[in-house]
């Protein structure tokens, strides 16, 4: 079945970019999310009661910090990542 839905521009761009990064089509991602949502629907109340949990901002910061720690650990260049970025701009 074909369905037409209106998605905010910014959201669609992010979905498309991440789908490309993971080598998936937007259609495949959409179907996957629909299936997961249907499977998890008994947990909707739990999701709605999310207020007491760490905010999206806090979770994102932890994720970013963890990536940074792995970057530092895997570094083969003595310069900081910012030094490399700034040098690339010159």
């Amino acid at each position, binding site marked *: 079945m074909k369905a037409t839905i209106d998605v905010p521009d*910014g959201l669609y*761009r*992010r979905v498309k*970019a*991440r789908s490309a*990064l*993971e080598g998936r089509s937007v259609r495949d991602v959409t179907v996957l999310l629909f299936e997961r949502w249907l499977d998890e629907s008994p947990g909707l109340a739990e999701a709605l009661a999310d207020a007491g949990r760490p*905010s*999206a*901002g*806090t979770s*994102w*910061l932890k*994720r*970013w*910090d963890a*990536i*940074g*720690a*792995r*970057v*530092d650990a*895997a*570094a*083969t*260049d003595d*310069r*900081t*990542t*910012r030094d*490399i*970025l*700034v040098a*690339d*701009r*010159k």
Partner: protein
Amino acid sequence: MITIDASILVAAASRTDVARSEAVAFLAAAVKSDVPIHQPTLSLVEVAAAISRRTGDDGLAQEATSALLAMPGVLVHPLDLEASAEAAAVAARLQLRGADAVYAATALAHRSTLVTLDDEIRSRASVLVDVVTPSEWLSRQG
């Protein structure tokens, strides 16, 4: 509304960067607020390139890209023909480096404050857009 220079994003993720504390404090305040974050797609490329060049790990660079796309409040704007023309005009007018012009043009187009650790973009772009350091932005939030 803000636009975040990639220099801040990578500074916040590196324990050896002298600006890490300032960058982390700023990012924490920014992502926990409701302020929209207008980013050029170039910021994704710059962060991925710098991480990959530092580590040689393409998977880690791609993880960082995915994380940036998931940043709360982020709106990523493509560098299409129109945006490129605007960035070119900004580069020509302010004699900015190419990447700096893309950030300044993004901030100009979306009326956002450009937050950066880079003194050159700060001094040159401030005639056209609101440009501040992370500490200055934090001070404004009270």
